[in-house]
Structures are given as C-alpha cells and as structure tokens.
C-alpha cells in the first residue's frame, strides 16, 4: 500500500506548479494523485503514453504489467522504449523511463503474463486499472478482475487508424461483459500485428486513458462512464456514443452474478493472449 501523503514537498510544489494553479487540481488534487496507484496492463502502444503522462502528473505509484521483451517492430508506436532496450522486458523499460522523468513516482515493473492465478493479487495493490492490452482474453480477464475487486477500468484499444476508449465498471456504467456478453469468434479478431496500426493512434488513445485516470484520481467526473469515444484518425473525427447502463442480468456485475471468481479466459475466448501467429483473421 502507498504511504499516505498529506503535504507536498517544496520540490513537488515547484515541479507541479503549472497544474497546481488549475482550480480543478490544486494542492488537494495533487495530493489525491500522490495517494493514487494506477496499474497499466500492457507496456505497449497504449501503455507507453498512458504511463508517461501519469508519471508526469505525479501519480503515487504506477505498475506496468507486460510479459514481452522490446522488439524493433514495437518502436513505431511504443515510445517509452528505445533501440538500446531491445531484448529488455517491456515492463522494466517502461518503468525506468517513467522513473527518469519523475523520481517522486514509484514505478513497479511486473514481468508476468497476467492470468487468473495472479490477476486479483496484483490488482489488489492498485486503485485504478488501465486496460492497455492487445487481446480479447486479457480484456475479459481484466474486466472480471476489476469488477470482483471493485476498481474502475479505463479501457483503450487501437487498430489501423481507429481507436476506442471507455471506462468500465464505474458508477452506474456497464462492464465489458454488459456490452459483450459473448466473446467474438476468434476468426473475427485482429491484433496490431495482423491488421497494422499507425503508431500515433494508440498514442492519442493512451493519452486519453491517462487523462481519464487523472480525472478519476482527482475526484473529477470521468467523461467516459457509460460513454464510449470512437476516434477515426483518417477522418480526424471523434464521436462520443451513449452506452447501455450496467445490466441487471450481467453474469459478473449484475444482480445475481454467476462469476464470483476468475475463470479460464483462453478457453472462454477460444484463443490465447500470446496468440500472435493467427492468420485467418481479417476483421
């Protein structure tokens, strides 16, 4: 657990001066940030910008979960890594980049494959979770784990020139399963390796995830509870849509939840989170 903070040091007051003068933040908001821990799941295209802006803003602790090592083909979008870090664990590379920007922040690398055996244990230590992952199984896993742990889940995704953002399991808004009770057929699922992505698209969505996490941490309203942002980078359009509320019959967040512990998400989705070689997919 984070050691509670009730005042800012002079060094912090100097460093954060440009956001301390915002009435919506102020000293109280900055202290709330310092007392908040955020878990970033995935130190990739979304997790890199999300993590660095959370670190810059002075979140108390940031955890990065990623089991992969940095590859050259990541560097067109994963801007916290560098050529010198190829082969290094992404979680460590991201955590060390954030520490170099802001040593006031505790940056914790988790070099593990998130799964049903470890998710609740890790999430327990954080207040807000960012879904910056890249596969369906992890998205259902994180959703269920966040509902069971009662943590808001700021979810981002990106592919080609498009991005999507929403906050699940927060206030009266829906969870991922309320929207998607059944997983998509595996042959309809496209990851960034198959479908491609312009690097700055997850850059914009990951930055938006950091913004929403900062607003939630400071006690401001989140703009994407029961709403989803749809971004089309080619058209330059942003559209906000209204989502269904939390569903009473949802099997994880509903009135009579059937899911009370984590399940096998690879089996549920018919795919594995590290399933990079799938070739059927076109969507």
């Amino acid at each position, binding site marked *: 657990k984070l050691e509670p903070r009730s005042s800012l040091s002079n060094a912090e007051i100097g460093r954060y001066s440009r956001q301390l003068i915002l009435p919506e933040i102020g000293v109280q908001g900055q202290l709330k940030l310092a007392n908040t821990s955020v878990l970033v799941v*995935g130190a*990739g*295209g*979304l*997790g890199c910008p999300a993590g660095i802006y959370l670190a810059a803003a002075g979140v108390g602790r940031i955890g990065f979960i990623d089991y992969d090592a940095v590859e050259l083909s990541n560097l067109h979008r994963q801007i916290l890594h560098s050529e010198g870090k190829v082969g290094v664990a992404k979680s460590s590379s991201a955590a060390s980049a954030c520490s170099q920007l802001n040593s006031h922040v505790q940056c914790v690398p988790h070099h593990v494959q998130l799964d049903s055996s470890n998710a609740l244990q890790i999430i327990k230590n954080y207040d807000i979770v960012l879904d*910056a*992952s*890249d*596969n*369906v199984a992890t*998205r259902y896993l994180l959703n269920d784990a966040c509902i069971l742990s009662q943590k808001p889940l700021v979810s*981002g*995704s*990106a*592919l*080609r020139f*498009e*991005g*999507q953002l929403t906050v699940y399991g927060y206030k009266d808004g829906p969870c991922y399963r309320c*929207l*998607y*009770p*059944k*997983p*998509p*057929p595996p*042959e*309809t*699922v*496209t*990851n*960034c390796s198959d*479908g491609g*992505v312009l690097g700055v698209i*997850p850059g914009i969505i*990951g930055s938006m995830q950091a913004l929403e996490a900062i607003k939630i941490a400071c006690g401001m309203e989140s703009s994407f509870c029961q709403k*989803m942002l*749809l971004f*089309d980078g080619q058209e330059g359009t942003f*559209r*906000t*849509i*209204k*989502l*269904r509320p939390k569903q009473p019959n949802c099997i994880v967040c509903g009135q009579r939840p059937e899911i009370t512990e984590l399940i096998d998400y690879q089996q549920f989705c018919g795919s594995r989170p590290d399933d990079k070689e799938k070739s059927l997919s*076109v*969507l």
Partner: protein
Amino acid sequence: MKTPITLEFSGGAELLFDKVKKHNVELPASEKKWTIGNLLLYIKDNLLKERPELFMQGETVRPGILVLVNDADWELMGELDYEIQPNDRIVFISTLHGG
C-alpha cells in the same frame, strides 16, 4: 414510400463492405415496418460483399459488433425490434482489441 437512412461501418466492419464506411441507403417501401431485425437481412442480401459469418450470427449481429442508433447503443432503443425512422443513422462498430 422509401425510407432514407445512413449506414456506417467502422472498427474493421467496413472491410466486409468494399471498405466503404458510409452508405446512404433508401430502404424500399414495405408492408412491414422496417426494424433493425429486417434491416440486417437487407444488409446481408444487398450490401455485404463477403463472408457473412463475420458480420452476422443467426438473425443478429455476431458477438463483438456494437450497434448504434443515432449515437446511442441499440440496447437503449429496443435492439432488433427498434423501428427505423427516416434519416436515422445506424452504425455497426467492430470492437477493437489491439494496443
């Protein structure tokens, strides 16, 4: 009387429709009212270019596609039973999973 509507596909769903994201469609006059349920059949027969199983499953859209009526989740509007109004904008979004 024909019913003019706008159909949009995004998140990759447009790849099944000649990569065209926006379609202005005039639904033909019909004795039955146009609902999203029979709109789906119309789309399947008239617009879908390939592999219908990547868009539909049975009588409805496949899991992982979100349907919007004028920027609201179709669950708020009655889903398959929603009665289509002239100039409605109906959007089919394939959920993204990448990062």
